[in-house]
C-alpha cells in the first residue's frame, strides 16, 4: 500500500513573467527554468515546476526562502515579472509505494503510467474535488502540493483510495 507522508518544510514562490524575459531569474536560480510544458528542473534542493507557460512554482529549503526571494528580486529588477511567496498557501505531501498510481487513480483522471507521466513531470490537476499539483519525483513517488484548507480532504481521499486499491 502506498505511504502518505508530509513533505519537508519548504519555501514556495510563484514566479510569473514572459518566458523571454526571465533569463536573469535563471542566473539567480542557478539552473534553467523548464520551458517545456509540465516539466520540472532543479539543482541541490531547489526546483522549478512548470505550471503554465508563464508560471513556475519554485521550491527550496525553507531556510533559504528570504535569501532566494531577495536574490531573485534583485536579479529580475529590470524584467517585468511577479514573484509571490506562497510558502504557506499550500502544503506538500509525499505518496510513495508500489501502488501509487492506482491509489492516485481513485481520484485523479490523468494517465499516470510512467510513459505518460514520466519522472520529473509535474502539473496542476484534480484529485476528486480538490486541485493539486502532482509531481513525479521517482518511479514510485509522487510529490503533491495542495492548498492547505484542502489538505485534510486530500489526505482523506488518499487514505480511502489506498484502502480500496486491488
Amino acid at each position, binding site marked *: 500500500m502506498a505511504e502518505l507522508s508530509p513533505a519537508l518544510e519548504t519555501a514556495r514562490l*510563484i514566479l*510569473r*513573467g*514572459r518566458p523571454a524575459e526571465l533569463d536573469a531569474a535563471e542566473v539567480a536560480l542557478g539552473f534553467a527554468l523548464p520551458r517545456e510544458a509540465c516539466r520540472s528542473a532543479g539543482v541541490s534542493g531547489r526546483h522549478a515546476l512548470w505550471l503554465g507557460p*508563464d*508560471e513556475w512554482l519554485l521550491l527550496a529549503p525553507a531556510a533559504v526562502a528570504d535569501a532566494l526571494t531577495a536574490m531573485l528580486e534583485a536579479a529580475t529588477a529590470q524584467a*517585468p*515579472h*511577479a*514573484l*509571490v*511567496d*506562497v*510558502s*504557506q*498557501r*499550500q502544503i506538500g505531501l509525499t505518496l510513495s509505494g508500489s501502488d501509487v498510481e*492506482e491509489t492516485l*487513480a*481513485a*481520484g*485523479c*483522471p*490523468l*494517465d499516470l*503510467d510512467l510513459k*505518460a507521466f514520466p519522472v520529473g513531470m509535474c502539473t496542476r490537476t484534480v484529485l*476528486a*474535488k*480538490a486541485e493539486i499539483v502532482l509531481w513525479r519525483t521517482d518511479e514510485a513517488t509522487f510529490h503533491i502540493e495542495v*492548498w*492547505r*484548507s*484542502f489538505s*485534510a*480532504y486530500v489526505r*482523506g*481521499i488518499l487514505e*480511502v*483510495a489506498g*484502502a*480500496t486499491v486491488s
Partner: protein
Amino acid sequence: MSTRYRSASGGRIDRGRPVRFTFDGRPYIGCAGDTLASALIANGVWLTGRSFKYHRPRGVLSAGSDEPNALVAVRRDEARCTPNLRATQVELYDGLAAVSQNRYPSLAFDLGVANNLMARFIPAGFYYKTFMWPAKAWDRLYEPAIRRAAGLGDAPTAADPDHYANRFAHCEVLVIGAGPAGLAAAMAAAKGGERVILVDEQVEVGGSLLDEPADGGTTIDEISARDWISQSLARLAAYPRVTVITRATAFGYFAHNMIGVIERLTDHLAAPPAGAPRERLWQIRARDVVLATGAIERPLVFPDNDRPGVVLAGAARTYLNRYGALPGKRVVVATGCDSAYAAALDLHHAGVKIAAIADVRRVPAGPLIEAARRAGLPIRFGCMITGTTGRLRVTGARFLVITEDGRAGLGETVACDAVLMSGGYTPSVHLFSQSRGKLAWDPDLQTYLPGVSAENERSAGACAGRFDLAGVLRDGEAAGSASIGVEPSRTFSVHAMAANPRGVLGALTHDRGPRAKAFVDWQNDVTTNDLKLAVREGFQSIEHVKRYTTTGMATDQGKTSNLNALAVVASALGRPIPQVGLTTFRMPYTPVTFGVLAGLARGDLFEPVRTTPIHGWAVAHGAVFEDVGQWKRARYFPRGGEDMDAAVRRECLAVRAAAGIFDATTLGKIEVVGPDAAEFMNRMYINAWTKLGVGQCRYGVLCRDDGFVMDDGVVGRIAADRFHVTTTTGGAARVLSMMEDYLQTEWPDLDVWLTSTTEQWAVIAVQGPKAREILAGLVDGVDLSREALPHMSLTHGVVAGVPARLFRVSFTGELGFEINVPADRGAQVWEAVWAAGQAHGLTAYGTETMHVLRAEKGFIIVGQETDGTATPDDVGLGWAIGKTKRDFVGKRSLARPAMSDPARKQLVGLATVDPARILEEGAQIVAEPGGTTPLTVIGHVTSAYFSANWDRSIALAMVSGGRARMGETLYSPSSTGDVPVQVVSPVFYDQAGEGVHG
C-alpha cells in the same frame, strides 16, 4: 432437499461443494459455481417472480444480464438489502437469502393477480383515459392506489453501510466482452506491447464458449473450447500490460472513448472482508475500443409465452452445460432458428426427453437439423407454438401446423414440463449505439448491425452479426490487430457445427382469438395487443409506442424484446422495419448502483471541508459554525448556555465598548503584481487606483460588464507594482477567474500577473476602541498611531514575533486592524492577541456579530444586499466610481437608461416604529397597509437584526426610489399584520464616521 433437476455430470459447478441458500425463506442446496437461477432450476423451482402490471407468475427466461423476469431481493442484513437483482447473475454463496418481489401475500398466491383478470379493461395507457373525475380524487384516491400497485422491489430503509471504489484508467486498447471474439481481439492487441484491458460482465471469461459441453464437438486449434479459454487466458497473463477484469460490466460509452465499467467485488462472497469495497467504478479512457459483446437470444412471441418453464433455448443449454441444471425432464422446443437444435441435442444427450421440436420454418436445413434428425428427435416443420398450459409451471404446449398454402392446419397439445424457445439472436449493439455510431439494418440477418462509427472503435463477433465461430475468431483477430495498426496474422482452425444465423421476428400466427396474451416485453407486461392498440390510436413513431405502452422501459431495457416490438409495430403499420426506426440506446447497459456512482464522496469526503488555521481554537472555545461555500466559519461563540441572540448581543457590545477578535482568513486574496498593476486595477474595478499611494487601502467594487455588482473588498497597495486585493469568501475563485479572463483574452499586452494568496495568509481582525492598546505590546517596529497608520492604510511589521502585513481597516465602524500573517503562524498570533487582549475585555466574535456590526454602519454584503441585479449606485456605492476613468468593466452598461430609472431599488435603512420588532430578512415592503394579494411590492428587507448598541431593531432594505423616501412610513406585511417602518439612512451608527479614525 434433493436437487432433482441436476444433471448426472458435467458443468462448471463444483459438485463437491454444496451451498445452502434460501428463497422466500425455504431452504435449498446448490453448488459452488451456481447462480441463484441455476440453483433454483436444479431444485425444480421455476416460479421466481410476478410481473409488473398483471402480477402473472413468472420464471427464469434467460441465463444472463438480459433477464426480465427473475428479479429478486437479496438480503444480507437489515441495511444490506438489494432489490431487483437478476437471479441469473446472483452468484450463490453459503447462506444467501433471496426473496421474491411484487407479490402479496405470497409468490404462489398473489392477490395482485386480480389485475390479470381485469386485463382487458386496463390496456396500455388506460390511465390517460380515466381517473379524471372528481377533480380531487386523482391525488387522494386513484394515484395512491396506482402507486401501491406499481413498483417492483422494496427500497431499503436503512443507510447502506457498504463502501464503493473508483478508478480512472487509461489504455491503448479496451476490449469489451471476453467471448471468442473478445479473447481473440485481446490476444491480437496484446502483441503490441501496449496496455490492453479486457472486461467481461460474467464470472469468468469465455462468453458463449462456456456453454459448450465439456466433451462436445467444438474445437479451436484442435483443443476443446474450454481448454482454448484456459490457454487464451494463460497467453494474456504473459503480457505484463494486459489486464483482465471479470464481473465487470461496461455500462456506458461516453464521448471521446471513455467507457464506464462497474466491477462487482464482494456481492458473491459469503463473508466479504470487512471494509472491502462492494463495487468499483472504472472510468476507462481508451485510444481504441473493440466491442465484442455478443448477441442476445430473442424469444418467440406467442400466447401465454410467459408461463414459468418457458425459457430461451440458449439459456437452457447454458443451464445444462455450464451449471449442470436441467430445465425439465420432458421438454418441447419451439424455434425459428437453427441454434435451438444445439440445445435440443445437448439435452437429449443428457437424457432429457425431447417431446417435440416445433420449427416455424417450413424447410430449414443444415448440419444441426441433420444431427437432430439423426438423433431421432421429433421435428415438425412449419409448426407454430400457439400456447402453453399449466398455472405456476407449464404442463404442455399447443401447436398449430400451418399448411403449405398458409392456412392453419391441425392444432394439438403436447405434454411437457419446459418449453425452450428461440427466435434467433439480436446482436448487442447497445454500446456501439451509445457511442453514437450509426446502426444499419441488415436485410439478410433481419437485424440492426453497427454501421458508421462515431468513435475510434470496432465491433467484432456476434455483436457485429458474425455468428460462425471461425468467422468470429477471425473478426476478433482482425479488430485487435487493427487497434494496434498491424495486419491480422493469426489463423484459427475450428471444428464446430455451423448454424444459419437467421431467425424470426415479431408475433407468430396463432388461432387463440384476440384476447390471448402474447408477451413481447415480459417485465412490463406489454403484449402484441398493447402494441397494436398504440398503433390504432395513432402512435406511429416507435418512440411514441414505447412511451405509450412502456415496452422496453423496464429494468432490462428491452434487451430481449425491442426487436420483436419493432417487428410487431412495423407489421401493424404496414411498413418495413427500418422505416419505423429505433428507440435510443442509453446508458446504463444494466442498472448501476447509485452508491458506486457516488463513489468516495460521502460523509466528510462528500465535499472538502475547508477550515482556517484558527479553526482549532474556535472549536476549543465552543464556536458554533456555519457553512459558507466549502468553508466552516465560526458564527458565534456562546458562553454558558447562551443562545445565538444572547451571544451576538454580548459580542456586539464588547466590540464597540472594548474590542473583538475575528477570524477573517476565508476572505479571498489576490496578489496583483507587475508594472501595469495599477492600470489593470483601473480597468477591472469601478474605482480609480492611480492615485492610491503605496501603503494605502481603498474599498474596491467590481462589476460584471453588464454593470451589476459582482464582488467587493479592500485593496491595499503594497508597492507601486503590487496590490493586495481581497474578495468575498464565496467570490474568491470567481473574481480571480474573471480577472484572468480579461487579462489573458482582452489585455494580454499588460505586464501584470495574478496569484491567489487566499491561503497564504491567516487574517486576524482586531476591532474596537481598545484594539490599538491590545496590539501595542505585540508589535515590533510598527508605529500604530493614528498619524503613522491612519484608517485605510497598511504597513509591514512584526506582530507577536511574526512578520505581518498589518492593515488598518474596519468593517465594524470601530478602530480596527487586520493582521495578515503566514498561515501556519495564524494560530500562534491569534493566541498571542487573545492573551494580550484579556486585560482589555477582548471578545471573540463570529460572522453573525460581524453582520450586525457592519449593518449598524450600513456596509453592504455582496449577495445579501445585492442579488446580481444591483448597480453600485443602487447600493449606495456610486461614490466609489472613478468618474474620470475612460472605461472600466461595467461602465458602459451603467450608462443604459434603465440603470438610472428613479424607480430602481435603492439601499435604505428601515427603523421599525416598534423598536423591539425585528423584521424578517426577505420580508416585503409595501407603501400602503392592508392591501390584498397580489400586493404592490416596492422593496424587500435584505438584513434585519436587533442592534444591541442602539437598543432597537435595525434593518437594511432595497426599496424602489428609496433614497427619495427618507422619513416616509412604509409597511412590511407579516403573518401578524403589516409592520410599520420608517425609511432612514442605512447608517445607523456613528454617521459622522468618527469611530474608524479612533
